[in-house]
């Protein structure tokens, strides 16, 4: 039984246009990098260089680039497990992200988190989280801290909390939005609506499938934007962040996009109708943005090919780095369990006696 194909609902906001050529080129470079990184991740998974669960941003590149173009370095980012692209565009090197996927000590989370749990304190990427909805309450708490630490204004920091469409059905989403609405927190909740939570469509999972409307219950503006339109995404996210930092008005932003492949790299997505897959492929933001820039004269075919080539080379370097990096030292197994040293901390390995005869 395959899911019905989705028709794209109307956005509630439009993109502005009149963008400098350099910016457009930049965005294409970023989209191309995310695409190359994800394709290679899938390949590395097939070669067992990457283990566990691995969720890709394939098909969501315009959304990823648009959101990361809007967020400022001082802002905090929380996300779910589909986090590679965000980490890359937050400024982390492909080397360190790939190394994390490879479970190497040089990875962003020291090889301890893997694909679902990318974290980098320096760039304020405050995690990748594998439990659905797990990121939403802590992101809300980060906004609470910011509210206490800073004065509202254009220079204030805000929190961006990413979540999937399926994630809007978990209690933590509703509890958190209520808190943010009630306490007027500087946070933007972004629903990356790729139409599916694993194999379940939005319509089958949400009684109100216009997810942006769910903000209304918490007196929070709800905005929906076309996730294949990188500029529209960026502008909508900027606007939302501005409300958060200047007016302490939390916003719910819904970004409509498609997931090109299965839920994770091991999912063949047989439940998906060929019609739906065709639509997803047709609206693939990477080739369409590429074609748009070429027809607008921003890029020549050669330029675009060179960008794709450079992205591929960049990712190849990351793979080499990840491959050559060492695994975490087994002696460090207990290294990060507690921040404050504590008496009698259990450090026995499996089968080691916990008591010597007294």
């Amino acid at each position: 039984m395959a899911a019905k194909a989705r028709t794209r609902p109307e956005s509630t906001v439009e993109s502005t246009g009149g963008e400098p050529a350099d910016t457009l080129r930049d965005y294409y470079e970023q989209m191309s990098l995310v695409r190359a990184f994800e394709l290679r991740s899938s390949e590395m998974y097939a070669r067992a260089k990457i283990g566990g669960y691995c969720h890709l941003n394939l098909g969501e590149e315009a959304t990823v680039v648009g959101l990361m173009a809007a967020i400022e370095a001082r802002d905090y980012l929380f996300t779910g497990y589909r986090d590679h692209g965000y980490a890359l565009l937050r400024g982390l090197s492909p080397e360190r992200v790939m190394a994390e996927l490879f479970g190497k000590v040089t990875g962003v989370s020291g090889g301890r988190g893997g694909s679902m749990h990318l974290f980098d304190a320096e760039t304020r990427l405050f995690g990748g989280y594998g439990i659905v909805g797990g990121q939403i309450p802590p992101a809300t708490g980060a906004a609470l801290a910011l509210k206490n630490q800073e004065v509202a204004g254009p220079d204030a920091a805000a929190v961006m909390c990413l979540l999937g469409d399926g994630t809007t059905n978990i209690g933590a989403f509703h509890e958190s939005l209520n808190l943010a609405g009630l306490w007027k927190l500087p946070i933007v909740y972004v629903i990356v609506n790729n139409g599916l939570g694993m194999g379940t469509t939005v319509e089958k999972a949400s009684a109100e499938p216009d997810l942006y409307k769910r903000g209304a219950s918490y007196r929070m503006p709800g905005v929906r934007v076309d996730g294949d339109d990188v500029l529209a995404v960026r502008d909508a996210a900027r606007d939302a962040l501005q409300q958060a930092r200047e007016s302490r008005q939390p916003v719910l932003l819904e970004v409509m996009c498609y997931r090109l492949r299965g839920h994770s790299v091991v999912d063949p997505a047989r439940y998906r109708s060929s019609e739906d897959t065709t639509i997803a492929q047709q609206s693939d933001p990477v080739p369409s943005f590429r074609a748009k820039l070429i027809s607008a004269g921003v890029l020549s075919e050669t330029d675009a090919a060179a960008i794709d080539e450079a992205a591929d080379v960049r990712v190849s370097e990351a793979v080499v780095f990840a491959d050559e990096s060492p695994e975490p030292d087994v002696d460090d197994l207990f290294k990060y369990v507690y921040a404050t040293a504590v008496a009698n901390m259990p450090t026995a390995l499996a089968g080691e006696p916990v008591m010597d005869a007294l």
Partner: protein
Amino acid sequence: MNTEVATTRTITYRQALNETLRAELERDDKVFLIGEEIGIFEGSYKITVGLLEDFGPDRVIDAPIAEEGFVGAALGAAMLGMRPVVEIMTINFSLIAIDQIVNHAAKMRSMFAGQVSIPLVIRMPGGGGQQLAATHSQNLEVWYAHIPGLKVVAPSTPADAKALLTAAIRDDDPVIFLENLSLYSAKGEVPNDEQVAEIGKAAVVKTGTDLTIVSYSRGTTTALEVARQLEAEGLSIEVVDLRSLRPLDRDTICASVKKTGHAVVFEDDWLSYGIGAEISATIGEGVFDFLDAPVRRVAAAEVPLPYAKSLEKAALPSAADLARVVREVLNISSTPNDK
């Protein structure tokens, strides 16, 4: 029993679960399944393959990602006499539903003086070793095994998966049915006819005279492997498969240790306050005088399980760890391949 025709088949644990769910859906129209991605997607681990197609969306319900909501809803349906079988994708996600399980499902019958009973089954796999990292690799069985009002079973073979699941569905109390990611593809002989296990009973799955290994779920598979390996070296190891973590069959454990005089618990959870702690205490209380050596536990290192293969491997209990500890308890010098 009729021995003329083939009375058993070799099938996987996954298939045993699937067939049992099918049989119970056919037998009793009060039985229904509910969980995330169990219908169209056919289950995260493909346990419910074909069931939506054959029983329809009223009996195989795809739930949104709302563990607290749909577990509680199943509980409510059970209060009115339905027999829901919930699938929680993994035990890790059950923490979102734990209030409904512990504060509600487990309490109602007692708290309301027996006026209501809760024929609810919650199936869920646990287990590490697949590089799923800290939040997706936990063995939290003891959390549920601790709770009066719940019954907790953890079958280690396809045959037990069938017999215990059948029993769980027909039981009038909330039963936590623990599966393990690494057991789904394990094969075993399963009787063709109806099998209803008695919940609360352990089984001696291998007899021996020198030492008892007590384990459950995936651990029993490893225990048997180690027992056979040591047998080749002349050691006679008995393996007790708990099958039921709550209630615990203390008699079977103690009877075995009384005979062997040595015990090792092999468990996938963390050591402190784990299943092995309860087993050890039981042995200490029941057959202290028969022990020739302290009871030892082989459990996971007490750390949020890291993703990296090297660290994950170091943290989880292995067959080699078990073999080494068995030798230590029996005071036999270890062989190099234990390391």
